[in-house]
């Protein structure tokens, strides 16, 4: 008995020693990594001279966090995980019955989203709700929609598109320019923007029909840049880098959201506030995103959707089964681009201002990252990834308390991309196929046995 106790004790102290050792290593590595990025900062003073600021305190905080994190990881988290793994392996295989929540996840999520604006309004008041509806609601939903649109091209058809933001730009500028030159309304221009983007999708699709993988990625990347450069340099029409401003707002069945007598607020006897317009926009983008999801789910069950997925798997086999790979690819590009166009015109109507700066490569990369993190092809996973990534970067603005830890000059927003990258690495190590890595089959001969996932539950093949 005493023997056993002494071995566990010695194992414990051994573990602590190892954890300490690894913590020191982690500290050294983070010191090396951050010494130039965090420890030193260059700024310009009033005479335009370069000044080197030394931030040893901040650097020390970073190193300490890395060391403490590594120590806790090795000493506590890893043994716990190993224990759980062993327990799991020892336990007999039990088929896990899925709970009510996971079975009805998408229905619950949709209801929650519909209730979100009134709840926020009740909790935070009219002015306070602005931030929550706009920054967290609309912003996230735009990316959900964009990622779902890109998912058709990348997730279903397997065509790696790094220039998706181009279609977003086409949609945004279609609305911005056609509304300011011809005075057409949002509801007329929304389908027009989608159609124009779809046309550009076909234009991109033609030259890249024979390309796959890396080569396709490079050409689509270049395409995205071409669209942006055209927007910058075609100054007579697009006003170049100044952008198009004063874009008309959308109306609800002809009711404007302004301070006039016939405006929304006056009509319903409410005090004038821009919050009502934001809430209207929230429902608008929610509707558009749900349309994207609905179309994706329907298409997956139709011959064209099956052909997309087969194309992703094996192009030669597709051709030998009589599938026209040219039209299949072009429809994938066009459909994906169309939703990008819808999202773009929504973006223009929300901002009231568009400039080429909103459509840089980074946007394409973020959208693609969301698709990959969520799990290619999975609508639920992508929505979660968008909420985490975009919501996460928005939350960074709210974390004023970090100033207490890192000093008063610390601005968490600046670390946005660092955290974004870290999150990607963590997710890819932890779940290499994304949050929802499993693919939902669409064909069933008899009744489905297991009901899992969320967005394919209504179908019986």
């Amino acid at each position, binding site marked *: 008995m005493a023997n056993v106790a002494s071995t566990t004790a010695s194992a414990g102290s051994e573990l602590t020693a190892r954890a300490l050792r690894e913590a020191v290593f982690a500290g050294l590595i983070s010191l090396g990594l951050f010494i130039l990025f965090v420890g030193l900062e260059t700024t310009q003073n009033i005479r335009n001279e370069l000044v080197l600021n030394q931030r040893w305190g901040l650097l020390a905080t970073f190193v300490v966090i890395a060391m403490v994190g590594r120590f806790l990881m090795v000493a506590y988290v890893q043994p716990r995980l190993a224990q759980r793994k062993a327990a799991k392996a020892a336990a007999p295989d039990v088929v896990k019955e899925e709970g009510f929540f996971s079975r009805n996840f998408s229905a619950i999520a949709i209801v929650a989203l519909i209730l979100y604006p009134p709840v926020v309004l009740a909790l935070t008041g009219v002015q306070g709700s602005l931030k929550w509806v706009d920054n967290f609601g609309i912003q996230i939903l735009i990316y959900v929609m964009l990622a779902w649109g890109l998912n058709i091209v990348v997730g279903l058809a397997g065509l790696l598109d790094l220039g998706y933001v181009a279609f977003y730009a086409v949609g945004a500028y279609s609305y911005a320019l056609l509304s300011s030159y011809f005075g057409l309304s949002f509801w007329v221009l929304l389908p027009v923007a989608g159609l124009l983007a779809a046309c550009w999708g076909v234009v991109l699709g033609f030259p890249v029909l024979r390309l796959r993988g890396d080569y396709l990625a490079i050409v689509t990347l270049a395409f995205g840049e071409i669209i942006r450069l055209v927007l910058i340099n075609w100054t007579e029409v697009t006003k170049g880098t100044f952008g198009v401003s004063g874009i008309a707002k959308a109306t609800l069945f002809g009711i404007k959201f302004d301070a006039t007598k016939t405006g929304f607020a006056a009509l319903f006897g409410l005090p004038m506030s821009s919050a009502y317009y934001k809430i209207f926009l929230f429902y608008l983008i929610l509707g558009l995103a749900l349309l994207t999801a609905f179309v994706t789910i329907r298409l997956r069950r139709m011959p064209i959707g099956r052909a997309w*997925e087969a194309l992703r*798997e094996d192009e030669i086999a597709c051709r*030998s089964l009589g599938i*026209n790979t040219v039209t299949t690819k072009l429809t994938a590009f066009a459909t994906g681009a169309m939703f990008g166009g819808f999202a773009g015109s929504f973006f223009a109507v929300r901002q009231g201002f568009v400039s080429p700066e909103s459509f840089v490569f980074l946007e394409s990369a973020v959208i693609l990252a969301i698709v990959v993190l969520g799990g290619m092809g999975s609508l639920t996973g992508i929505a979660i990834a968008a909420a985490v990534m975009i919501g996460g970067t928005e939350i960074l603005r709210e974390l004023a308390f970090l100033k207490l830890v890192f000093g008063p000059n610390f601005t968490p927003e600046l670390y946005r991309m660092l955290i974004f990258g870290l999150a990607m690495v963590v997710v890819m190590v932890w779940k290499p196929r994304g949050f929802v890595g499993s693919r939902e*089959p669409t064909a069933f001969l008899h009744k489905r046995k297991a009901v899992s996932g969320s967005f394919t539950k209504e179908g019986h093949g």
Partner: protein
Amino acid sequence: MTAPLLHVRGVETYYGNIRALNGVDVEVHRGEIVSLIGANGAGKSTLMMTICGSPQARTGSVHFEGQDITRLPTHEIARLRIAQSPEGRRIFPRMTVLENLQMGASLDELKHFKEDVEKVFTLFPRLKERQAQRGGTLSGGEQQMLSIGRALMARPKLLLLDEPSLGLAPLIVKGIFDAIKKLNKQEGLTVFLVEQNAFGALKLSDRAYVLVNGRVTMSGTGKDLLANPEVRAAYLEGGRH
């Protein structure tokens, strides 16, 4: 004699400047099993792919039911009901067995899907057990069955099989050859088969061609070729000196 179902005349196919087929003539009649045997690099798979239009023949012609299909794109050739189980099987690995079979039936928009699936499942009962499983998780033999099954879903007039025995255990190869024989006997399906496994292929076939360096050097009934000393020396006993 009636016109052949598939008629390959003087076909030359090139990869860049390299000539892979050097004037090949092959005929396949309705209801026959015809096999093409030959060593590695003889051009067997190239001939198969040329019939499917990828790559296309530079000279010569391919006729199917009297129609010139030499310059048709691959998917249109497939629409004439020439179904292929390609080399390396090429099933869709992330799609389920049933979805793979659906893809095979896409020419008819799944009109006869249920009926045809039952037929494929009777032919290959293993696929029925595995219908909800992803294609990539099947064993090699099951994948080959799936590949043939997928081709059959298109209700083909001509079935092209490229090395169905590749990398499979002898017992499984026998099962697959039996299934091919059964299809031919019961349904009258015309089969054109490319094989390295000369013994199995010749036993199975009504007629056969021997391909050497892109040229047909011998042809005859399966039985004759099996008995032919040259064929025996080159393809049947070559391995056991």
